[in-house]
C-alpha cells in the first residue's frame, strides 16, 4: 500500500526531511566522487587513443605518458636497433615539451616534435585541417596547432607561436579531435624540437607493427633487444590505467558509502521511532486482519521510500556537483555520471532503506496486538 506509506512518512515532516537529507548527502557524495573517477577514466582512455595499435617505447625508469616522459633519452643508435626487428611498418621517434601547467587542469599546451612526414601517426589519419595546411617535407620553423589552443589564444594561420623564446609560424590548425594532446598540441619538426631542447635524443618512439595482432610479441622483442627500453602497448597501458582508476573508484565509493551508511542509520532510527509511536495503530492493523508479514512489509516500504527519495535527490545533486566539477577543472576532467554509477547509487540507497528498515519492521511485525492496543 504505497499511498499509505507516502502518507505515513509525511506525518513527521521535519523528521522525514532530516532522514532523507542524510541519505541525500551520502548518495550525492557517491555520485559526485564517482563521476570524478569516471571522468578520470574517460580522460585517460582518450589520451591513450593516439597509441592504439602502436607500441610506445621509452627509456626504462623514466616518467610515463602522463608526465611527458621526463628523463627519457633514446638515441639514434637505439632507434636503428629497433628498426632491425622484423615485422615493423614504421618507427617514429618523437619528443614532447610541456608548456604552462595549470593546477587541476593539466598543461595548457604541449609541443610535440616529430618527423613531419610521419606527423599523422600522432594526429590521426582522418583528422582534417580546420584551416591552413599540413607540413611539407623538409620544412622547419613552422608548426601546426590544435583547435583548442588556437581558440584559447585567438591564433590564426600566419600568426607566430613562441616556445622558449623561439617564434614559430603557424601553418595549419587541425579540426577538433577531442583527443586532449592533439587539441592542445603544437606540432613541430623534430629538428626544431632538438634545437629547442638542445639535444639529439628522443623521449619516445612509436613503433607501428605491420600486423596489429603481433603488437604484443613485437613489444617483447624490443625489450629483449635493448634492456634499457620499455615497450608498452595500448592494451598494457589501458590495463594499468584501469587498475589505478578502479582503485580511485573504490576509494571514492568508499568515502561516499560511509556518508550514506550514516544516512542509513538515520533511516533505522527514524523507523524505530515511527514504530514506537504507531504501536497502537499497528495493533489495530493486526486486530483487523493484518498479518505480521503485512506489517513488516508496510514498514519496509516506508523506509525504502525514504531512502529512495533521498537516493533520487542525491543522484540529482550529485549530477549537479559533477557538472560543477567539470566546470571547475575547465573541462580537463569531464566528470561523468555513467548509467552504471547512477544505478549503483540508487541501488545502494534502496539497499540502505531495506537494511535500515529491517530491524524496525521485524519488531513491528512481531508486536503483540493485545499489548500494542492497550499501549498508553
Amino acid at each position, binding site marked *: *500500500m504505497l*499511498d*499509505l506509506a507516502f*502518507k*505515513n512518512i509525511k*506525518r513527521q515532516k521535519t523528521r522525514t526531511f532530516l532522514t532523507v537529507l542524510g541519505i541525500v548527502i551520502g548518495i550525492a557524495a557517491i555520485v559526485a566522487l564517482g563521476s570524478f573517477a569516471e571522468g578520470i577514466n574517460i580522460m585517460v582512455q582518450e589520451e591513450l587513443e593516439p597509441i592504439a595499435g602502436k607500441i610506445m617505447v621509452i627509456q626504462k625508469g623514466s616518467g610515463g605518458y602522463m608526465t611527458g616522459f621526463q628523463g627519457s633519452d633514446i638515441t639514434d643508435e637505439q632507434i636503428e636497433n629497433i628498426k632491425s626487428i622484423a615485422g615493423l611498418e614504421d618507427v617514429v621517434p618523437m619528443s614532447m615539451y610541456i608548456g604552462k601547467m595549470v593546477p587541476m587542469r593539466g598543461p595548457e599546451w604541449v609541443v610535440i616534435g616529430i618527423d613531419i612526414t610521419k606527423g599523422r601517426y600522432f594526429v590521426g589519419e582522418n583528422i582534417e585541417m580546420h584551416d591552413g595546411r599540413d607540413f611539407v617535407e623538409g620544412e622547419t620553423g613552422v608548426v601546426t596547432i590544435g583547435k583548442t589552443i588556437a581558440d584559447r589564444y585567438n591564433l590564426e594561420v600566419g600568426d607566430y607561436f613562441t616556445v622558449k623564446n623561439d617564434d614559430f609560424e603557424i601553418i595549419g590548425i587541425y579540426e577538433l579531435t577531442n583527443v586532449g594532446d592533439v587539441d592542445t598540441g603544437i606540432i613541430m619538426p623534430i629538428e626544431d624540437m632538438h634545437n629547442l631542447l638542445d639535444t639529439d635524443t628522443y623521449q619516445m618512439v612509436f613503433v607501428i607493427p605491420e600486423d596489429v595482432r603481433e603488437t604484443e610479441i613485437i613489444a617483447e622483442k624490443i625489450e629483449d633487444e635493448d634492456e634499457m627500453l620499455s615497450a608498452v602497448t595500448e592494451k598494457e597501458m589501458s590495463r594499468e590505467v584501469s587498475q589505478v582508476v578502479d582503485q580511485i573508484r573504490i576509494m571514492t565509493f568508499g568515502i561516499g558509502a560511509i556518508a550514506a551508511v550514516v544516512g542509513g542509520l538515520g533511516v533505522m532510527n527514524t523507523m524505530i521511532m515511527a514504530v514506537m509511536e504507531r504501536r*497502537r*495503530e499497528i*495493533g*489495530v*492493523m*493486526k*486486530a*483487523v*486482519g*493484518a*498479518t*505480521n*508479514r*503485512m506489517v513488516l512489509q508496510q514498514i519496509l516500504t516506508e523506509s525504502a521510500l525514504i531512502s529512495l527519495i533521498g537516493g533520487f535527490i542525491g543522484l540529482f545533486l550529485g549530477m549537479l556537483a559533477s557538472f560543477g566539477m567539470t566546470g571547475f577543472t575547465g573541462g580537463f576532467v569531464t566528470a561523468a555520471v555513467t548509467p552504471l554509477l547512477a544505478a549503483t547509487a540508487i541501488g545502494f540507497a534502496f539497499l540502505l532503506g531495506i537494511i535500515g528498515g529491517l530491524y524496525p519492521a521485524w519488531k513491528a511485525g512481531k508486536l503483540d*496486538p*493485545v499489548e500494542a*492496543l492497550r499501549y498508553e
Partner: protein
Amino acid sequence: MSKEHIAEAKNITKVYNPGMESEVRVLKDVDLSINKGDFVSILGPSGSGKTTLLDIIGCLLKPTTGKVVIDGIETNNLNDRELAKIRGEKIGFIFQQYNLISSSTALENVALTMRINGKSKNEAEERARKLLHMVGLGERLTHLPSQLSGGEQQRVAIARALANEPKIILGDEPTGNLDTKTGMKILNLLKDLNKEKGYTIILVTHDQRISGFANTVINIRDGEIIKIIKKRKGRGK
C-alpha cells in the same frame, strides 16, 4: 458444537508467567457459548479477566489451555497468519480508546480495514462511504479523528468494525470514554445493528447499564464465570 453457536470457548484458562513467582491466572476454566445473533454483555469489575476473555474470543490472544471455536473453525492450532485471517474476516473490534489512525480521515480509517483484507482502494472507499453514511457520519467523511467528537470517533470505529462484514463484533468498553448520552446513542446503534442486520455483538464492560441492552449477560469475577443471565425478549432475527 451447535450450528447456532457463532463462538464457543471450552475450558479456557489463561495464565501469565506460568511457574514464576509472578504467575497470574487470569481465566480459570471458562466455558462459554455464544449464539448467532446474540447481544452479549460480559460484565465484571476491572481485573476480572473479561478483557482477556474478549481478546481470546477475538483471536488476538491464545489461551493457555482450552479450545476456541469461531464460526465453526477451531482456532487452537492456527498460526499467526491464519488467526489474522479469522480476525479480518469474522471479527470486528471496537475499543474504548477508538484506536483510529490519527493521520487518516474517517473514510480512510474505515477503508484501510478492507484494504488490509485485499480490497482495492476504490472498492474499499466506496463501501466505507456507505458504512459511514449508515452510522450517521455521511457529512464527516474527510474529517480527521481530531476533528470529530468522541461519539463520532466511536461511530467511525463501528463502521470500521463492520467493514469486512464480520460475524461477530467485539467491543471493549465501547462507551467507557463517552458521556452518558453519547454512550446511549452508541449502544442504540449497536442494538440496531444487532436487531436489524443480525450481527452478533459481544461487549465487555463494568457498566451495569449496558446490560440493559444485552440479551445475555455474563458475569465474570476473578477469572470465573459466576452467572449467565439470558433474557428472552429482543433476540436477534
